[in-house]
């Protein structure tokens, strides 16, 4: 029964994607949806790290940037095949993740957050400073579209299908991981690392593994960004974006795969909606961040449900 259920969900998802891709009017919406999809990919990975394994990363934009620049630079400047460039980005991000992760994941709570924060900023500065390679603060342009076996994903719609196919694939992987021996071990570490260790779980190795996995997700998303927007700048990969990513995870609901979709969508669309307020956009964004975190700390869905339950109980005079 469960298998049929899964196949149905997969079919529905694919159908929605195909419909959206074919019917949406104009490139603006397609571009927006591409961005949402790219953010979903990062958030899926980050959720595995934060929601399931219970670790904090305030520097994940760095991996996003590493993937983007690896793909961008290798394909534009050195004419490397996009797939190879993507793989190079993955390798780079994995390497950096291992280097930083081994010492950092020995830290707990705030100290881990601080270490990832520091690391993230260092990468952002490096991307800015290595201007002979990255184009510096003004960005890097002329990135060719993604191509596979000669077929180029040139139009926004082609990019759309590429991005959302990846979303589907990574969703499949993530759901499987969560439901597996590893997923249980991660959740165990989150609830009681001591007991998990006593039951034979190599917590340090697993934490590092999932940190690397989440870095790979972000790197892949970065490569997709480079090929679909053809232009990248260091400012997109800094501290504020790392915070935005973390907020997407929390707003969507930690340890909720579908929550990743919600959180990414909401926080990607929000700045677009707020753009009408011009100068006040930043003010309102900050205000919304604060208000949502104060009153709906368990995420939008659970938060609203909690609020609704609370109201019901008050009405019944309890």
């Amino acid at each position: 029964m469960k298998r049929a259920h899964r196949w149905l969900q997969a079919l529905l998802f694919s159908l929605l994607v195909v419909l959206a891709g074919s019917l949406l009017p104009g490139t603006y919406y397609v571009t927006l949806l591409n961005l949402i999809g790219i953010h979903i990919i990062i958030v899926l990975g980050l959720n595995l790290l934060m929601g399931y394994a219970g670790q904090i990363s305030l520097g994940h934009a760095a991996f996003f940037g590493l993937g983007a620049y690896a793909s961008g630079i290798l394909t534009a400047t050195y004419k490397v095949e996009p797939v190879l460039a993507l793989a190079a980005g993955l390798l780079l991000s994995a390497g950096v993740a291992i280097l930083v992760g081994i010492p950092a994941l020995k830290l707990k709570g705030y100290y881990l957050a601080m270490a990832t924060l520091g690391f993230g900023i260092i990468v952002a500065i490096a991307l800015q400073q290595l201007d002979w390679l990255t184009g510096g603060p003004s960005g890097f342009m002329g990135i060719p579209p993604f191509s596979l076996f000669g077929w180029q994903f040139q139009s926004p719609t082609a990019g759309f299908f590429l991005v959302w196919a990846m979303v589907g694939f990574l969703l499949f992987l993530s759901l499987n991981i969560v439901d597996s021996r590893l997923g249980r071990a991660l959740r165990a570490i989150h609830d009681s690392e001591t007991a998990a260790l006593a039951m034979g779980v190599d917590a340090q190795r697993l934490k590092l593994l999932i940190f690397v996995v989440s870095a790979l997700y972000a790197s892949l998303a970065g490569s997709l960004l480079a090929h679909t927007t053809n232009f990248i700048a260091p400012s997109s990969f800094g501290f504020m974006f790392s915070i935005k990513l973390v907020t997407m995870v929390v707003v969507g609901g930690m340890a909720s795969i579908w929550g990743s979709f919600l959180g990414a969508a909401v926080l990607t669309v929000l700045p677009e909606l707020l753009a009408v307020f011009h100068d006040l956009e930043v003010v309102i964004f900050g205000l919304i961040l604060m208000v949502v975190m104060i009153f709906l700390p368990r995420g939008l869905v659970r938060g609203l449900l909690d609020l609704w339950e609370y109201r019901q109980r008050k009405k019944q005079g309890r």
Partner: protein
Amino acid sequence: MEKLAEFLQYIFSGLTNGAIYGLIGLGFSIIFHATAIINFAQGEFVMLGALVVIGFYAWGLSLPVALGLAVILVTVLGLVFERLAIRPARDATPISLIIITVGGGVLLKGLAMVFWGKDAYTLPPFSGQAPFVVAGATILPQSLWIMGLTLLLVVGLEGFLRGTILGKALRAASYNPVAARLVGIRVSQMVQFSFGLSAAFGAAAGALIAPITMGVYDMGTMLGLKGFCAAVIGGLGSSSGVVLGGVLLGIAEALASGLISSGYRDAVAFLILLLVLFFRPQGLIGRGPERTS
């Protein structure tokens, strides 16, 4: 002799910036010590201190009065911030609190941009422009103000924390909130007070550095993060440690910037942060509250 002059120059520049980082770091430390919260809006208190004092001075108030009023205003803002943003989220997870304070910082920065625009504003130095010359290196009078006032503030803080009833109550509330409540200390008030005190220190730092770096709506972000690095490097639990961390940071920055490359200047703070976290997380001096959430 030239080498000595050059070296001294770095030291002076490092001490100046380091004092500022130390002051900002103290702000982080005060709040973290009392509440185990990292206040990512701290940098914006610095920025507001700078811009508000510039504003008051531009209205015609004398410098000392403008300074005093600016610090008071930002302190009140810190108290209000705690009351509206932190207290309702008292029991939130660390990650939620991080996002709340970052949101608060973004909000303040946005308001500053709306109110003051993106221009940079100047503030005259407290006692004149002419730099002193010491062994071939120059040092601005403002730098002396910065170092002197920082020392005064740090000594004052220690004296306050150890010598006065209020200071002891603040420390008691941070070591053991339950016991503190039992002896009649209003812990929630202490938490609010720590935010106010932090804001005051931040504002002072902003006002002190404004004559040198000018006041801009986005000056707070990097300053805040570097002050935070100073606090962790020195050790979040110890005032002298934080200031020492700041000074170390300032000097390291100046040396790296002058001798290696100025572009990576900002990265120095975070590199040292990582080194400290990996090899000595309690900080160079800190006995640090053992908060591992």
